[in-house]
């Protein structure tokens, strides 16, 4: 068990920075998720931590040691690879025992520890099989068992669920959460799946273009995104963004979206310019088919029934947005729709680059 400190870590490939001056502190026993779109540098950052890549700049500390110059085997880490990287020429038992044997643990201890680790991931009946005789989910468990049997100070996981089918992923996600909770090992978990990140992480570090753009606990990352990028990347559907005209008067500011105005405290409005970007989650918009108080008129474009609720795509003026309504809501395409924003849940961002942020998230 150990805390981790990354200080100004930079790693470039062919002069293109994959990780750009990243600093991050992870507490002892914390489950930290690195979340971001593909190519954002999250896997590279994990590999720098593992010692599989050497950073051009910056230091990596695990516990009291500066491990930047140490090879992977001296870092007290264990890693679960996206491809599982289970050794095909070794039986499940020997796969799990591999690291202990390298460490020179004596035979009876190895058997005992392998059996306990295999029990934790429910592989006890498969120890004498070769990986080729296992399903994808079981191979994944071998990879996890092989890592936790080492009792590492830090557990690194690189998209461990992404090669499983949807149902298995859901089951295993919960199991993984319980397992890591019980072990209370410091864990870094890389994923591009925001649902995985929200469900697993104690904290989430959202990455984009080689940089960390927000580090927060899951509910804050969801409710209080630090930028349009985070708001658009996290959540399904992504956060809605509407351009609004601002008029400041004293402690209040008036936002005008099309011909609808709302009043908000002035200190929350980004300085400068007379436009802001209003971010609002789909579930924080109340919808009605008749006009009601403080509601803005919109028109319905698409109605998607999703079982537990409806996802309605609507437009206010020229601006599109998504709204979540109860499943029995009588929405119809091309009819009027009345929407009221939950003002407490409005988030304001400086204007511009919406398109870029949205494109990066998709």
């Amino acid at each position, binding site marked *: 068990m150990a805390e981790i400190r990354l200080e100004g870590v930079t790693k470039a490939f062919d002069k293109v920075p994959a990780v750009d001056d990243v600093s991050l502190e992870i507490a002892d026993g914390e489950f930290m998720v690195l979340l971001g779109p593909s190519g954002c540098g999250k896997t590279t950052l994990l590999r720098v931590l593992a010692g599989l890549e050497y950073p051009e700049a910056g230091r990596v500390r695990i516990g009291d040691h500066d491990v930047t110059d140490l090879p992977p085997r001296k870092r007290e880490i264990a890693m679960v690879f996206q491809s599982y*990287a289970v050794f095909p020429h070794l039986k499940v038992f020997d796969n799990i025992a*591999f690291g202990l044997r390298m460490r020179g643990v004596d035979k009876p201890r190895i058997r005992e520890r392998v059996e306990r680790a295999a029990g934790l991931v429910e592989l006890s009946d498969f120890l004498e099989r070769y990986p080729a005789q296992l399903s994808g989910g079981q191979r994944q468990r071998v990879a996890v068992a092989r890592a936790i049997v080492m009792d590492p100070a830090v557990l690194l996981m690189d998209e461990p669920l992404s090669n499983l089918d949807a149902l298995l992923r859901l089951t295993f996600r919960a199991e993984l959460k319980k397992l890591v909770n019980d072990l209370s090992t410091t864990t870094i978990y890389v994923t591009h799946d925001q649902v995985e990140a929200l469900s697993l992480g104690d904290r989430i570090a959202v990455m984009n273009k080689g940089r960390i753009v927000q580090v927060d606990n899951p509910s804050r990352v969801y409710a209080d995104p630090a930028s349009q990028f985070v708001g658009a990347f996290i959540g399904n559907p992504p956060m809605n963004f509407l351009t609004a005209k601002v008029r400041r008067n004293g402690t209040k500011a008036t936002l005008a979206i099309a011909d609808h105005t709302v009043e908000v405290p002035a200190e929350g409005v980004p300085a400068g310019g007379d436009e802001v970007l209003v971010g609002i989650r789909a579930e924080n918009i109340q919808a009605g088919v008749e006009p009601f108080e403080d509601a803005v008129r919109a028109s319905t474009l698409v109605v998607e029934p999703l079982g537990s609720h409806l996802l309605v795509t609507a437009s206010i003026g020229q601006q599109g947005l998504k709204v979540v309504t109860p499943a029995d809501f009588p929405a119809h395409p091309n009819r009027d729709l009345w929407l009221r924003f939950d003002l407490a849940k409005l988030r304001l961002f400086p204007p511009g680059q919406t398109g870029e942020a949205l494109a990066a998230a998709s």
Partner: protein
Amino acid sequence: MSVVDEARRPPEPADTGRPARARPARGSPAARRRRARRLTYAAAVVLSAWVLIPIYLITVTAFTPRRVSYQFPKPLVPTELSGETVSFFARSAGVLPALGRSVMVAVVTLGLSTLLGAPAGYALARYRFRGKEAYRLLILSTRAFPVVILSIPLAVNFITWGIYDTVISVALMHTALALPFTVLITSSIFVSVPRDLEEAAQTLGCTPARAFVRVVLPLALPGLAAASIFTFVLSWNEVFAAVILTLRNRTLPALVLSGLSRSPLPFRFAAAFFLLAPSLIVIFVIRRYLLGLWGRVSR
């Protein structure tokens, strides 16, 4: 809707050259493609016959009694089989020592080329370095030198070094010839072992060298074995350099070649069979790896 219909329709049977239900008009792209395919098949048949018929005749004649092997035209189906011809060949003067030398040359060649070539193959498979693609091509260019031209200056050197007419001299030459293939084949074998496995071993406490021995080597072994056999056969069959670099201590092919015009017909057939059989077996075993290799080079 039409998309659904498309999907429900039973899959088209693979084009086997049979006339399709609705035959496209002559000169249509489909017809042209079919004609091109027929030409390809015809060419393949001719080429295969070119190679296979001599192999067949050699094998059959090597195992018929001596008097039958003088017949002409040869019976296409053997009427009687015997080991007489082959054992006559094996008992001829110098054949067994030459056979021993051939084996030794091949073994030394195999050892040297693996020792030098496999690390190069590993580097090509795993590391990015400046001029990598150029290096890959350059390796093959050594084969652009005619063996004879390469051999004569080598013979001069070997004489001054005092290793002319020895097993070592031939083995050195064969190593030079085999190395390009060893490098490229082993590189394609190492590429097929996922890098993740090696890295996983390193995170589990292995030094890079130990990760190689414990993980990469066991997984590469079948391929490396195939590559070794390929090198073995290359050396086994090589004759020009062997003729130039040896005088009295000939390898089997060199011995056979130097006495070929004076040998009786059954002797030649038996010799041909001896030289042919190992390569055929090997090529059959490793054709999968060869395809991988050529696919990579032509890319």
